[in-house]
């Protein structure tokens, strides 16, 4: 999704693909274009009336004819009324159709971003992802409603003006077009330069947004280290860079807009020169020449405005391109077609020669073979960076292995339907994200149909009633953005309850209680044990107390599974990794 490819890709390809993905835009397009044509016709009323009035009203052979003039002008007013009504209808349709289509596009893009794999999501800046469903689509909408229609009416106006001009004088019309065609080439060439300038603007705006978000999200660190000056220097730099890019773009745009002026001069000059001769030899009347001079405005104005609109179009098309790029990215961890449902009941897991490497990185898991029987409680231990978390992510199919396979029950993980997988297998990540809402809202995130009473029951089953009651508004306490109103440990409690109520058959906890005090952790752990009957639990253990109470322990070291067995057995293995970890743990927790 590099910005470079955006600029290079063909705008018509983007438009075509965009219309393909938003078929609503095409619905009734014909009628809208018809209305646009009628609207454009309205622009002809004045010049045609002027010609009729001058030729047949003023220079009429029988002398000035007032009745005729009044009739022409009244007729002109009526046509103007009709075309104004068409303009009204066209605008209305346009807003309704484009807003409806773009709301759908927003929704689909949003969904697609969630469908992309975790790795893909992480490779993009969050601000950039948000821009895909907001500003990028806003630009498309602005363009469709203003620029897009201007383009249609402008084209219609050029066609209509050409037709009428040809009626007055075909010679002059050909001359006008001969001047006009080379200018269009010039405009096209200038457009290329403009596109590059606007691409720079987009890049610098996203840089700027990321700098702003840093000053907002990292507010605490900036304060604590007194580095406001550094942050504001970075902000100023990105703001200034964005301004510079905008200015460069507007300079180029002004010059290419000026190309329209060239057309106007060229066309006018040719009409004056040739027109004089045509009038002299009697093949054109004064009124016709006057009307022609009016029509030249009608002809060149759309060219000038059209150039302007093409600038906007550049922005809109590259915005649209970025949205389409997201939609056209196939999720690399995809919901299988005709996927299988997991059979009812507790589920076991088997890793068969599983390897994993991050894209462009070294391998972090080197062939893991392990079988976890249903209903077991398994602890996974190892030093930081040993591959524990990768193991958990592969187990829950947040990522797919680069070698080997994971089998859930008897079904390869890649064949399990997402709806089945996500309802039966739940992972609680270390940094459990909370949404800006109440405690109840956050718990219901896992299971919307829960009543308050059921949520209370869940908290009390996990021994957390006291905690809920100590909150200012109980279940209705607002947790703030990302749970900012409660401590990190409390956020983990909420995440755990949230996973608990989703009642999975395989629960994976990735250091989910690392910030919780030991007493609470143990209380949670025994509460989970009590209700874990009939559930497989895999715990990436941060504290070895978890390993001690597990049925079996998996010990990871440098991407390999080095030990596997019950705690009591492993701890006996002298000089083993696990014995080392355990000794250190005892030292940490038992020294007086």
């Amino acid at each position, binding site marked *: 999704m590099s910005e470079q490819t955006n600029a290079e890709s063909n705008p018509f390809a983007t438009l075509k693909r965009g219309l393909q993905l938003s078929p609503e835009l095409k619905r009734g397009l014909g009628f809208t274009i018809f209305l646009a044509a009628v609207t454009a016709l309205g622009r002809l009323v004045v010049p045609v009336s002027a010609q009729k009035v001058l030729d047949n009203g003023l220079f009429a052979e029988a002398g000035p004819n007032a009745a005729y003039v009044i009739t022409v002008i009244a007729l002109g007013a009526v046509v103007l009324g009709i075309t104004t009504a068409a303009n009204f209808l066209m605008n209305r349709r346009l807003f309704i159709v484009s807003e409806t289509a773009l709301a759908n596009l927003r929704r689909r893009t949003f969904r697609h971003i*969630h469908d992309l794999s975790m790795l893909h999501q*992480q490779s993009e800046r969050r601000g950039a992802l948000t821009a895909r*469903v907001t500003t990028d689509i806003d630009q498309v909408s602005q363009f469709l409603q203003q620029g897009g229609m201007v383009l249609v009416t402008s084209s219609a106006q050029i066609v209509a003006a050409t037709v009428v001009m040809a009626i007055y004088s075909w010679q002059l019309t050909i001359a006008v077009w001969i001047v006009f065609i080379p200018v269009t080439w010039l405009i096209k060439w200038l457009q290329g330069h403009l596109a590059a300038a606007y691409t720079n603007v987009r890049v610098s705006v996203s840089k700027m947004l990321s700098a702003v978000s840093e000053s907002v999200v990292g507010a605490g660190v900036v304060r604590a280290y007194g580095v406001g000056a550094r942050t504001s220097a970075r902000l*100023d730099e990105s703001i200034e860079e964005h301004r510079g890019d905008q200015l460069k773009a507007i300079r180029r745009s002004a010059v290419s807009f*000026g190309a329209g002026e060239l057309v106007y*001069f060229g066309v006018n000059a040719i009409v*004056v020169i040739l027109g004089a001769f045509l009038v002299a030899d009697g093949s054109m009347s004064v009124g016709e020449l006057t009307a022609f001079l009016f029509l030249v405005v009608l002809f060149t104005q759309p060219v000038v405005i059209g150039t302007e609109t093409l600038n906007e179009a550049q922005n809109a098309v590259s915005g649209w391109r970025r949205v389409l790029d997201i939609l056209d990215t196939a999720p690399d961890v995809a919901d299988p077609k005709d996927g299988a449902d997991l059979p009812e009941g507790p589920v076991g897991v088997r890793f068969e020669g599983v390897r994993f490497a991050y894209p462009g990185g070294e391998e972090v898991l080197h062939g893991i073979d392990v079988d976890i029987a249903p209903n077991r409680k398994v602890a996974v231990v190892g030093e930081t960076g040993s591959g524990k978390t990768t193991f958990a992510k592969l187990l829950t199919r947040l990522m797919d292995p680069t070698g080997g396979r994971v089998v859930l029950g008897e079904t390869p993980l890649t064949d399990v339907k997402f709806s089945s997988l996500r309802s039966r297998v739940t992972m609680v990540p270390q940094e459990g994200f909370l949404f800006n809402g109440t405690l109840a809202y956050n718990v219901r995130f896992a299971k919307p149909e829960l009543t308050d009473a059921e949520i209370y029951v869940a908290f009390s089953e996990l021994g957390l009633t006291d905690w809920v009651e100590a909150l200012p508004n109980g279940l209705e306490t607002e947790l703030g953005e990302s749970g900012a109103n409660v401590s990190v440990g409390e956020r983990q409690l909420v995440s755990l309850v949230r996973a608990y109520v989703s009642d999975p058959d395989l629960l994976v906890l990735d250091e989910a209680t690392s910030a919780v005090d030991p007493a609470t*952790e143990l209380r949670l752990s*025994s509460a989970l044990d009590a209700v874990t009957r009939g559930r497989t639990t895999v715990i990436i253990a941060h504290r070895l107390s978890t390993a001690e109470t597990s049925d079996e322990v998996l010990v990871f070291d440098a991407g390999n599974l080095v030990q596997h067995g019950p705690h009591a057995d492993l701890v006996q293995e002298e000089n083993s990794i696990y014995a080392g970890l355990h000794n250190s743990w005892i030292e940490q927790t038992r020294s007086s």
Partner: protein
Amino acid sequence: MTSLDGTAPATANLLRQGLRNIGDMIRIEPKRFAIGAFGAMVNTATTLFVSYVIGWVVGQVAVPAYENGEVAVGAVAIGVAALLGTSVLRFASMCARRIGAGAMMFQVQAHWRRQVTRRYLALPVSWHQKHPTGTLLSNANADVEAATRPLAPLPFAVGTIFMIIVAMGVFVTIDWAIALVAVCMFPVLFTLNAVFATKAAPRAKRAQELRAEVSAVGHESFDGALVVKAMGRETAETERFTASTEELRDAMIGVGRLRAAFEPAIAGLPELGTLLALLVGLARFETGAMTLEELVMVSFMFSVLAFPIRAIGWVLGDLPTSVVGRRRIDHVLAAAGDMEYGENAPEHDGRAAKLEFDSVAYAYPDGTEAIRDVSFTVKAGRTVALVGATGSGKSTLASLSARLTDPTAGAVRIDGVDVRELTHPHLAATCSLVQQIPFIFDDTVRSNLALNRPGIDDTRIWAALADAGADKFVGDLEDGLDTEVGERGTTLSGGQRQRLTLARALAGQPRLLVLDDATSAVDPKVESQILSGLKHSSDAASVLVVAYRRATIALADEVVFLDGGRITARGTHAELLAGHQPYADLVTAYEQAEAEREFDEETTA
């Protein structure tokens, strides 16, 4: 989405506010505005001059040619030369207008962005917590754009007003009847524009708010993408997003309906005016009050005026959005409650600082008390462990120590001086806080550690990395200290991020180190090395550490036990273990659990 101002702007006010906003912006960038406006005036003047040339060509070239049957070559040459001259002038003035307008708009945008982000940096952390990130992002971006939007067509509109005045002058000198038609048309056109602008105001405001809401929902949802995925809630999240999106759609369609009604009328009126001018002009031509040349010129002027008048409409049309955007910017700029820093930067010998809590209380804005009546001292060079159950107020104490927030009662003192009296640089250099959730800047490892603080060279950085147990993995990175870590350090693991933030604190050689459970993802061995290293080095720092691990606690000279926001026990680890049951229950939880298990096993055996 917090509504900043519940009342819809009164329509009468709106125009005033919008014009005042424009006035403010002109005052920010008068020079660029002048260039743009001058360009626009020259440009419109030449537009009128073209009408004159056209009228002249018809009168001096076409009519004689028609009457004489031959072309006056001299007159044609003059006509073409006049057209060329005006074209060149039009091109130059148009560039001045557009570049002037653009340069002005971008300068004002940059100006406000700098101001808004300055406020972000100056406002306290508590203010940030009250405002969703998405809203703050949109204040610095979309709202600034909205507020400055009228600037793009502004010089054009100024030029148009100038052109109308000139044209009126021309009409009056030609004929009073024609002038009357213009006098009727322009006010109607202006009123139509004004009515549209004011009617659209509340709708535009609503759309703007909804746009911010859509952005906030999107941002939050993508922030929590992992949880959404892990719980398979993509569909529910999409529904939530769709609800906001559909509201936005309806609001935009509302704006569109209004626009659809007004725009065609605004476009059609000048054309009706031209027809009227023709009619009136014809009558006057017949009475001999006007020449043919003048009639053509006048009707041509009406038709060329039609388009530029729209520029006034654009400015007026952008006013509602701009007023809303400006209000939202002002909301940030006017936000009070800055953390004022003191003037005091006491001399010191570089040795450890003393931290003192004196009857400190902290209550949230809603009145909920997080901590109350907390008094304790971290003596110079000593290590104090803060222990307590989840939610007992430990993190609040940690942020009070580093003055991320101020207490609602009592005082926090460093070396006997209230932290509110210290200068910001002094405070930042004295006390380093390492937060529970590591925050990494989108920059290199070196910049993340040094943060442009003076005196932090590579030697010190490597020493700090070694002390934090991060030297090995940083050494293994392809570009070492020059490695870019990505937004929020996404290329690193949680433990790595935590060690980098630890190293960042150590690199500054603070005299007081506050660790808010900052080692949860660090291996216990590394943690004890860090703490004992701090304790035994010659330039030892005082340490306040939030901890659960017994080994960590045991390294502390004193333990402060928090329960429900109050200190319920203080003393050495051994004293508390022996004398305070809640403390003993908390820190010996694992042993107790193990003992119970062994007991169970024995009894069942």
